[in-house]
């Protein structure tokens, strides 16, 4: 590992390689807990979609397929940029021009941050529209635009409840991800030795990709029920 010379080895570890393995393994275990954190909601989704399929189909007609697809694409571009940055910081040799590396990393991660913000803006615009239509679940929920079959029993509300819960939790993760990636962009573009933060960037990158993967599932489950 070329960067082993530049990073300090923290106390319990023997060497940089071990430290990096620990960081990556720790992150993967954390992501496993995240899978189950979202998992509780996916179980809820499965149960209610099974019981109230009609409502889920009606509900998904309120969503913009193209808009959701665009959001997915935006996230995937972000993922690509994060992967490139990770690759860059990993593979850069110690004698590389640090200024150039800084600039590149700052650029990639800055762009990723903007893409994340763009995703959230689209999502919040969608929320705004749904709320405007009275489709925010709760006592003020206005189901009048739906057929009686899903209106009277309030099952249509369940679709929107799950939609807001699951995309909301995802959006929360996005906010955290944007802060982390944005923070990294600032940190790396100012750092004398960006490679010191390679483990941190890899960890944050894994988190970012994970948040993408959640959306990869949310998109067909809420937008493409048809």
């Amino acid at each position, binding site marked *: 590992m070329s960067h082993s010379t530049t990073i300090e080895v923290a106390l319990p570890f023997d060497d940089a390689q071990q430290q990096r393995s620990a960081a990556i393994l720790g992150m993967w275990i954390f*992501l496993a807990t995240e*899978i*189950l954190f979202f*998992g509780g909601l996916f179980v809820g989704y499965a149960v209610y979609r099974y019981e109230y399929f009609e409502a889920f189909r009606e509900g998904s007609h309120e969503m913009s397929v193209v808009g959701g697809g665009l959001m997915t694409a935006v996230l995937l*571009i972000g993922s*690509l940029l994060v992967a490139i940055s990770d690759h*860059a910081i990993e593979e850069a040799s110690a004698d590389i021009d640090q200024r150039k590396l800084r600039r590149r990393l700052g650029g990639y991660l800055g762009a990723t941050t903007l893409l994340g913000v763009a995703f959230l803006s689209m999502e919040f615009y969608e929320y705004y529209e749904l709320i405007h239509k009275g489709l925010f679940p709760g006592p003020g929920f206005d189901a009048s635009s739906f057929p009686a079959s899903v209106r009277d029993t309030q099952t249509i509300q369940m679709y929107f409840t799950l939609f807001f819960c699951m995309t909301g939790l995802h959006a929360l993760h996005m906010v955290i991800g944007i802060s982390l990636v944005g923070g990294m962009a600032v940190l790396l573009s100012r750092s004398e030795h960006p490679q010191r933060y390679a483990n941190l960037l890899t960890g944050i990158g894994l988190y970012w990709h994970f948040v993408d*993967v959640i959306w990869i599932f949310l998109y067909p489950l809420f937008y*493409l029920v*048809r």
Partner: protein
Amino acid sequence: MSHSAELKPLFYNFAALMVLLAITIGMSYVDLGAFNLFVALLIAGIKTFLVALIFMNLRSTSNVSRLAAVGGLLWLGFALILTAADYHSRGWNEAQAHDLIEVEQARP
């Protein structure tokens, strides 16, 4: 960029993801009944696999990390399958029970 050659997999991967995204949107307009869900989840699964393998570097990390990723999914599977076992079979007993009533009543 001395390492641009090694960047290629990332771009290929991205292209593949975009193609899959297009396919999943397209497939949602084709009515396959219950298979729509299956196809959508299958494509999402492939995408996840690609992201995990290439972007998240699962192909070259330690086995333990892979185990963690698979473990998370496996445990989610436990939750889904056993919960589904309850919901799916809830009506069964009653149905069977009432058939019995009819049989019993038909007898005399």
